């Protein structure tokens, strides 16, 4: 168990910067009047962020990931989340073996 002061400082700087980004949204809400167009923009944040997070995996990694994403999507419309995720993970493992 050792703590190097520079390393600790770097970690705490990262933690502070990260917490700042987490609080930024609350401060932004205070400044902005959330109506009309601003509200429509904020309502679009969940689908826009989720899509931006997964897009490289889904569209730009390989056929196994793209097909598995489609299977997960179909499963998610019919099944509970846990089942859809299990099917998605199982299909990516199978497809990676099949497609090399």
């Amino acid at each position, binding site marked *: 168990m050792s703590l190097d002061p520079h390393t600790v400082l770097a970690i705490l700087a990262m933690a502070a910067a990260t917490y700042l980004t987490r609080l930024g949204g609350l401060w932004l809400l205070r400044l902005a009047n959330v109506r009309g167009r601003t509200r*429509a923009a*904020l309502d679009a*944040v969940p689908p*826009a962020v989720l899509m*931006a997070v997964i897009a490289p995996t889904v569209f730009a990694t390989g056929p196994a*990931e793209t097909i598995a994403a489609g299977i997960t999507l179909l499963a998610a419309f019919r099944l509970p989340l846990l089942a859809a995720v299990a099917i998605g993970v199982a299909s990516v493992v199978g497809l990676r073996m099949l497609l090399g």
Partner: protein
Amino acid sequence: MSRRADFAAGAFAIAPVLAAAIPIALLFGTLSVAKGLSVAETSLMSMTVFAGALQFVAIDQWSNPVPIGLLAFTALVVNIRHVLMGASLGRSMGDFSSPQKYAGMFFLTDESWAFAEQRARKASLTPAFYFGSGVALWSVWNIASLAGAVLGAGLGDPAAYGFDFAFSAVFIAILTGFWSNWRTGAVLLASGAVSALVKLSVDGAWYIMAGALAGIIVAAILHAEDENPRETDRIMPS
């Protein structure tokens, strides 16, 4: 629902993410120790930073002497999406006191946030539910990253078991709940296309912010005052 039951409901809702987070956190602990950080330093990072993507990027950039400024700047860039997520979720935090909001934001991750937004669309988001999922994920993340740091190398690659895809699968499943009309399709198209293109052409973690902003701008452009008011009420309870 009682506060305790609501806390448990939050932890239970995020269970699939907990399962997927274990191998990822084990891997983080392993890589961190391999890069020269001590077990205590690795744990300190998981406890205070608590942001998976950033922690992997930071370990990748770690060198001697420690580039403190670069790492802090990297933290801002990789996590700038939190500003958008917090602004969106903050509107559903009507039941939270001010200290609860500030404490709650510490637990903001892509995963707990997505479940909180999903919950806020169906019922009002209680602090107990939110902290239930946040504290559960924080605990699992820290226990597994400590285990990875102690056990060291030889745990294997999560990709071999498909665990790397688990987070994508969770997000795809949650995404299906956010469809409301053709405008959602336009938002997804813009966000997905820009994110994938930026990922392929620009180094670093800019793709999330670029894609998210593209989708949000499309939503603002397509906004029409005649939108069904009931529909927007459903998105924003209380």
